[in-house]
C-alpha cells in the first residue's frame, strides 16, 4: 500500500474539519464538568451551613409558589383530558385517579418540577456566578483564600439536592389534589373511587420519581455552576451562559429521564 492511499479524501478532510472543533469542545466541556463534579463532592463535608441555608431558601422556599401553580394545573388538566377521553372511549370516566397518580408521581412531578427549577434557579445560578466571573469576583475569592467551588458551587448543589426532591413531593400531592377537584366536581367521579385509585399506588412509584428528581437536581446545579464559572465576555457572555445553562439543563433532564426510567424499571422500581 503506498502513502497516497492512506491520505483522507477531500470529503473526509472536510468532515473532520467540520466535526473536529465541536467534538474537541464537547469532550473538553465534559471533562471540565467531571472535574467540577469531583471537586464539588470532595468539598461537600466542609460546606458552610448558613450559606447552604440561604441557598435552600432561594432554591426551595422561593420556588414553591411556581411549583405549586404548575403542578396544580397539570393535575387538573390531566384529570380533565383523561376523564373526557375515557368517557368517549369507554362511555364513562374510569381510571382517572390511576392515570393522574401514576403520571404525576413517576413522570410529571419530577420532570415538570425540574424544568421549572432549571428555568428559575438554574438561570439565577448561571447569571450570578457568570457576573461574578466577568467582574473578577471569582478571582478575588482565590486571592482571599477561598476556593470558589467550596464557597459557591457546594452550597448550591446541596440546596438543590435537598429542595428539588421535596418540591417534587409537594408537586405530586398538589397535582393529585388538583386532579381530585376536577374528577369530583367536573367529571362527577365519586371521591372514594379517586382516592382508592390513588391509594393503590405503592412506594415504588414514589421512589421512582424521587430517585429521578435527585439526579435532575444534580444536573441543574452542576450545569448551571459550570456555565457560570466558564462565562466570558461581559454582559453578552452572562446572557449566553444563562441561556445555555437553562437549555442544556432542560434537555439533559428530558434525555436522562428516559434512560433513568428504563434503568429503574429494569430494577423493578416503579
Amino acid at each position, binding site marked *: 500500500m503506498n502513502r497516497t492511499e492512506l491520505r483522507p479524501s477531500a470529503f473526509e478532510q472536510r468532515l473532520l474539519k467540520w466535526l473536529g472543533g465541536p467534538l474537541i469542545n464537547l469532550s473538553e466541556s465534559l471533562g471540565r464538568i467531571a472535574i467540577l463534579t469531583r471537586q464539588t463532592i470532595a468539598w461537600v463535608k466542609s460546606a458552610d451551613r448558613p450559606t447552604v441555608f440561604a441557598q435552600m431558601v432561594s432554591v426551595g422556599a422561593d420556588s414553591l409558589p411556581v411549583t405549586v401553580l404548575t403542578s396544580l394545573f397539570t393535575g387538573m388538566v390531566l384529570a380533565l383530558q383523561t376523564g373526557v377521553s375515557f368517557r368517549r372511549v369507554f362511555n364513562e370516566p374510569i381510571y382517572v385517579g390511576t392515570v393522574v397518580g401514576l403520571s404525576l408521581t413517576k413522570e410529571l412531578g419530577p420532570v415538570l418540577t425540574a424544568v421549572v427549577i432549571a428555568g428559575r434557579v438554574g438561570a439565577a445560578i448561571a447569571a450570578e456566578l457568570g457576573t461574578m466571573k466577568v467582574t*473578577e*469576583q471569582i*478571582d*478575588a475569592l*482565590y*486571592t482571599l*483564600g477561598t476556593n470558589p467551588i467550596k464557597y459557591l458551587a457546594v452550597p448550591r448543589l446541596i440546596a438543590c439536592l435537598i429542595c428539588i426532591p421535596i418540591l417534587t413531593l409537594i408537586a405530586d400531592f398538589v397535582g393529585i389534589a388538583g386532579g381530585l377537584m376536577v374528577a369530583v366536581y367536573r367529571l362527577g367521579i365519586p371521591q372514594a373511587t379517586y382516592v382508592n385509585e390513588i391509594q393503590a399506588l405503592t412506594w415504588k412509584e414514589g421512589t421512582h420519581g424521587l430517585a429521578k428528581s435527585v439526579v435532575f437536581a444534580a444536573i441543574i446545579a452542576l450545569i448551571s455552576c459550570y456555565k457560570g464559572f466558564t462565562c466570558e465576555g461581559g454582559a453578552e457572555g452572562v446572557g449566553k451562559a444563562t441561556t445555555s445553562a437553562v437549555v442544556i439543563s432542560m434537555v439533559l433532564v428530558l434525555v436522562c429521564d428516559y434512560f433513568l426510567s428504563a434503568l429503574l424499571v429494569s430494577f423493578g422500581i416503579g
Partner: protein
Amino acid sequence: MIRLVNVHRSFGPNHVLRGCSLDIRDGETLTIIGGSGTGKSVTLKLMVGLLKPNRGEIFVDDQEISHLSEDALSQVQEKFAYVFQGGALFDSLTVGQNVAFGLYNLKKMDRDKIPDYVRERLALVGLTGVEQLKPAELSGGMRKRVAIARAIAMAPKYLLYDEPTTGLDPIMSDVINDLIVGLQKKLGVTAVVVTHDMKSAFKVSNRIAMLYEGKIVGVDTPEAIRNSKDPLVQQFISGSAEGPIKMKVRAF
C-alpha cells in the same frame, strides 16, 4: 522578591506574553506600563497564580509557583493581596463584610477583633461609617478604596494593583496615588502597579517597567524613564500616535 523568567502565555491564537522577564525587589513599588492588551494584567495574574504560564518560570521568595499543587499555591497566595481593576467587591455582601471576608476565611484573627480591625483598615483608606453600605451604593472612587482596604486587611507582603486609577476623575486618581504611596510607607509592602496612567506611574513608583509586544523592554527609575531616549518609551509617555508603537485600529 518576585521573579519572572522568560514567561510565555497565550490565549488561543493570541500570544500575549512572549518571553517576559522581570525582577521585583522587596519593599519597592514597581509599575508596569504598556498599551491596552499588551499583557499587563496577565502578568499580575501570573504572579499570584491565578493564571499559569505556558512556558517559563515564576519565583515568589525563591519558590517556583507555576507547578505547585492547589494547597501549596494557596499558601503562596496568602502572601499576596490583589486590588482588581473594577474593585471586584462582592455585591451580595456589605462593605464591612467585604473587608472582613479574607479574615474570616483564613482565620488569621479572633472573630471579636475583626469589626474594629475592619473599621481601622477602612479609616486608613479614608472611609468611615460605610461598613453597612452595599458596594452598589458607593461611587467609583469609594469602591476602589474599599477594594484597597480589603486587600490591606490581609496584611500582605505583596500588594498588586490592577489599573488603580482607571475610570476615576483626575482628583480622585491623585487621592488613590497618595494612598498607594502612603500605604507603602506605613505598611512597608512590596507593590506592583499596572497602569497606563503616566502621571500615576511617575508618582507612585520606585521603578517603572515597560511592557511591549509581550516583553519587558526597559526597567528604570521614574526619572530615567522620563529622560529615556528609547523611542518606544518616549512615544508611550508622551502619548503620541506617531512612533514605533502602532495601534491597530479597525474601521467600522
